[in-house]
C-alpha cells in the first residue's frame, strides 16, 4: 500500500509559483477532454472549436478584447483587496451599480450631449461602484461583519435593483414594453478603437492602463507596501503604523471604483443601453482571473485574455456543436479549482510513502536520504 503525503517546503517554491497556472491549465484541458468525450464529441475537434477558431480572425480578436476588458479591470482591483487579505466577492454588484449610476446621465438626461457626457458617465460609474463597495467596508469596520458574505449578498440586491429599474421607472416608453432603457445618445457611447477592424472599444485601453497603474502602486509605492504588509502580517502592519480599517476602505473603494468603471464601460461600449442582465458573471469570473494571474496585474492581463476566450469558446461550441454554453462556466470553475489545488505545491511537495505502521519497528539503518 502506498499513500501520498504533503511535506512542507522550508521555503515557498518560486518555480511552482510560476508554474502553477500552467499546470492548472493543463489539468483543465485533460478534464475538459474527458467531459467532451462523455458528451459524445471528439475532444480534439471540440478543442479546436473552443480555443482556436474564436481567435482566428482579426474581428474575433476584437471580441476577445471586449470580453477581456471588464475581466482585467475588475481583477486588478480585486488583486489589491486579496493582497491585503480583504475578501471582496461582490465585484459583480459593484459592476452593476457602476453601470446604473453612470447611466443616469444618458437615461435621465437624454438631451444632454457633448464631449463632457462620456467623462462624466465614467466618473459617475466609478463613484457608483465605489459607493456600493463602501457598504461591506463600513459593515466590516463598524460591526465586524464578514465581508465575504455581505459583499456577495449585495450582488443579488444589485441584480434585482437593475431588473426593477429597467422594468419600472427607467423603461423606455417607446420600447414596445421590452425591459430596457432608451438607447444611449451618440455622445454617451464609448468609441471603438479601430472601427474598420472590429468592435473593440476604449474599455480595453482602460484595462491596460489600470493594470500598469496598479502594478506601479503595488511594487513601487508606499501604499502598495502598506497593502502587502497588512495582508501578510497585520500585526507588523499595526507596528508600522498602518491602519487596518483605513486599508479595508482603501481596498474596497479602489476595487469598487474599477468594477464600476468596468460596468459603465460595458453598457456604454458593448451594449449601448441598460438591460435586465448586463454581465455574464464578469465580477465572479474576475476572481478566477485574479488568482490565475497570481494577483500580479501583468499576470492578470494574460489571465483575463484566457478567461475571455472561455466565454467566446462557450458561444462557439454552442453554435457549432449544439452543446450548452454553460460549458464556459465549467471551464472557468475547473481552472479556479485546479489553480488553487496546484498552489498547494508552492508550499508543499508531494511524497509517496509506503504505508507501514509508524510504531516500534526495528529501524533499518537510515541512509543519507535526499
Amino acid at each position: 500500500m502506498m499513500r501520498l503525503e504533503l511535506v512542507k517546503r522550508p521555503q515557498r517554491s518560486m518555480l511552482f509559483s510560476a508554474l502553477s497556472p500552467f499546470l492548472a491549465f493543463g489539468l483543465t484541458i485533460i478534464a475538459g477532454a474527458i467531459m467532451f468525450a462523455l458528451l459524445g464529441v471528439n475532444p480534439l475537434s471540440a478543442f479546436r472549436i473552443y480555443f482556436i477558431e474564436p481567435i482566428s480572425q482579426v474581428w474575433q480578436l476584437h471580441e476577445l478584447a471586449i470580453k477581456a476588458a471588464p475581466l482585467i479591470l475588475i481583477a486588478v482591483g480585486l488583486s489589491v483587496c486579496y493582497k491585503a487579505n480583504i475578501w471582496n466577492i461582490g465585484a459583480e454588484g459593484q459592476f452593476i451599480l457602476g453601470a446604473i449610476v453612470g447611466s443616469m446621465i444618458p437615461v435621465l438626461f437624454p438631451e444632454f450631449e457633448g464631449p463632457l457626457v462620456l467623462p462624466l458617465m465614467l466618473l459617475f460609474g466609478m463613484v457608483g461602484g465605489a459607493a456600493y463597495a463602501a457598504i461591506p467596508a463600513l459593515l466590516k469596520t463598524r460591526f465586524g461583519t464578514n465581508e465575504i458574505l455581505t459583499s456577495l449578498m449585495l450582488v443579488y440586491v444589485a441584480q434585482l435593483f437593475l431588473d426593477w429599474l429597467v422594468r419600472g421607472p427607467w423603461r423606455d416608453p417607446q420600447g414596445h414594453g421590452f425591459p430596457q432603457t432608451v438607447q444611449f445618445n451618440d455622445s454617451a457611447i464609448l468609441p471603438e478603437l479601430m472601427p474598420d477592424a472590429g468592435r473593440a472599444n476604449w474599455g480595453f485601453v482602460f484595462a491596460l492602463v489600470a493594470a500598469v497603474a496598479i502594478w506601479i502602486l503595488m511594487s513601487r509605492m508606499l501604499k502598495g507596501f502598506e497593502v502587502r504588509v497588512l495582508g501578510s502580517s497585520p500585526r507588523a502592519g499595526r507596528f508600522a503604523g498602518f491602519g487596518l480599517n483605513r486599508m479595508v476602505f482603501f481596498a474596497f473603494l479602489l476595487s469598487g471604483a474599477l468594477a464600476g468603471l468596468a460596468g459603465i464601460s460595458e453598457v456604454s461600449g458593448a451594449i449601448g443601453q441598460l438591460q435586465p442582465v448586463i454581465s455574464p458573471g464578469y465580477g465572479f469570473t474576475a476572481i478566477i482571473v485574479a488568482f490565475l494571474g497570481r494577483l500580479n496585474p501583468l499576470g492578470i492581463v494574460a489571465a483575463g485574455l484566457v478567461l475571455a476566450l472561455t466565454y467566446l469558446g462557450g458561444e462557439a461550441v454552442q453554435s457549432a456543436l449544439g452543446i450548452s454554453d454553460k460549458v464556459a462556466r465549467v471551464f472557468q470553475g475547473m481552472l479556479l479549482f485546479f489553480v488553487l489545488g496546484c498552489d498547494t505545491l508552492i508550499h508543499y511537495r508531494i511524497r509517496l510513502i509506503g504505508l507501514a505502521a509508524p510504531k516500534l519497528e526495528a529501524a533499518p539503518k537510515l541512509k543519507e536520504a535526499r
Partner: protein
Amino acid sequence: MSANHDGTTLLEVRGLTKIFGTLTACDHVDLNIAKGEIHALLGENGAGKSTLVKMLFGSLEPNSGEIFWNGQAVRIASPGAAKKLGIGMVFQHFSLFEALTAAENIALSLDDGSPISSIAAKARALSYSYGLPLDPESLVGDLSVGERQRIEIIRCLLQTPQLVILDEPTSVLTPQEADKLFETLERLRSEGKSILYISHRLEEVKRICDRATVLRHGKVVGHCNPRQETASSLARMMVGNEVKAVVRAPAEGIETAPALLDIRALTRKPATPFSIPLKNINLSVRAGEVIGIAGVAGNGQGEFFESVSGEVLQQDAASVRIRGKDAGGLTITGRRLMGAAFVPEERLGHGAAPRMKLSENLLLSRHATDGKAFVGPGGMVKSAAVYAAAQRIIEAMDVRKSAPDPEAAALSGGNLQKFIVGRELDRRPSVMVVNQPTWGVDAGAAAHIRQTLIELARSGSAVLVISQDLDELFEISDAIAVMHNGQLSKPLPIAEATFEKIGLLMGGAEPGHAEHTLETA
C-alpha cells in the same frame, strides 16, 4: 544530591544528523541518557538543541543516524510514537486552550476516551504527590504562566514516561517557582525516571543536572559533569570563546536630567478575556538612564508595550508623555515622529514581516520618520536609498545572512533581532523602548545589543527595557521595576536591588514586605 542512576542506558543517540537546505542543524550528534539521571542539553540559541529534541520526540525526521531505546534500535516517526515508547515532552511554548479547563486540556491530549472526571481526579492526585498543586477545574485563561506549565508537566507525567524532556522550563518562572520545579525534578529522578533538561542558564544546570552535553553549531563539543565545572567554563564550551563583558559606565547627573518618557497613571482595560488589565502605572525614564522592567511572562508586559508604543491609544493623552509633550492620543507613527523608537518582543510577524526583505522591513518602522530619505514625490519608494540604509545597518550590527537582501524569515532569530534593534538605533532615537532585547540571541550578539543600549542611554537618550531575563536587567539597568499582574512596582536603584528582592516582587509580594517569604509560588 548524588545521582542514583544505576548506570544503564535508557536512550542512546548515535550520529544523528538533520540538514535543512544548506544548514546542518545537527551534525552527527551522540548522546547518552542513563536511567535516573537529569541530563542537561546546553547550547546557545541556534546550536541545534531544539532540532535534536524534535527528532527525539518524533516531530522531525533525521537525515541519518540511529536512536536506541533500552538498547533496541527504534525509529520515532511521530510524537505519538514517542509517547508510546515512553518519551514525554514539556514545550517552552505551551499549547493550551485558554477557554478550557486544565482537565479538559489534559483530556484532549490523552485521547483515550476516559471521562473528564476521572482524568481530573488522576491529575489532581498526581499534582499533589509531586508538589505541583493544580486545580483541574480551573480555566487555563485564569492561571498564571507557572500554573500553566504545571498543566503541561502533569499532562506529560500522566502518560507515565520514562524520559521527560523539558525545554527551557524556567524561562517563564520566578526564582521561587523555579525552586519548586527543581524539587519535582529531583523527585522524578529518585523514582528512576530520566530527564533531558534543555537550558542556557548555567547556574541551574550546575545545581540540578548530573551530566551535560554541550552543543555548538550543531555539533557536540563535549560531555561533562556540570558540578565540576564553573559557570564560565561551561559558557566557554557553549560559546567557543570568552564573551566580552558588558561595561556599564556610571550614569552621571541623572537626577537632574529631564524625563524623556513619562508614564502617568496609565490604566488599560483588558482587550480580551485573557489579557491583563494595566492598573495605574507610573514611571519616568530620564535622559541618560536605562530602566529595566522585570516580571514573569504574561503579567501585562505585552499590554504595557502596546500602550507605550501607541499601537493602542490611550484615552488620557497625558498618561504617556514623550519629551515633555502629551503622546497618549498619538499613533505609533506620531510617537516615532516625536523621537521614540520601539522594539517589540515578537520578531517575526510583529517587529518584522516574515516574507519581506530586510530592506522592506527597514521601511516598516521608518517610512514616516525618514519620509524624506525613503519616500519620494507621489509616494514612490526610493528603493535604492532604502537598500543602502539596510546594508549600513547590516554592517553596523554584524547581521549574518545568506543573501544580500534576504527575507526576514530566512535569518536566524538572533540575526533578525540584531537587524531590528539596529534599525531603531540607526535613527539615534531619544526614547527607546525594547521588549525582550536579546531573547533567543546568542551570547556574543546579546552582549553587543546590551552594550549598544547602554551607550545609547549614556549619549543622552532614555532607554526602557522590558525583560524576563534577570541577569540581563542586572547587567544593563540603572534601576529595575517589577511588573506583576498589570501593576508596576517603584524602580529599585540597581545598588539596592538583589535577585531575591526582585524575585519576590515578581511573585507578587507587596513591595513593603519583600523580606517575607512567599508561601506558595
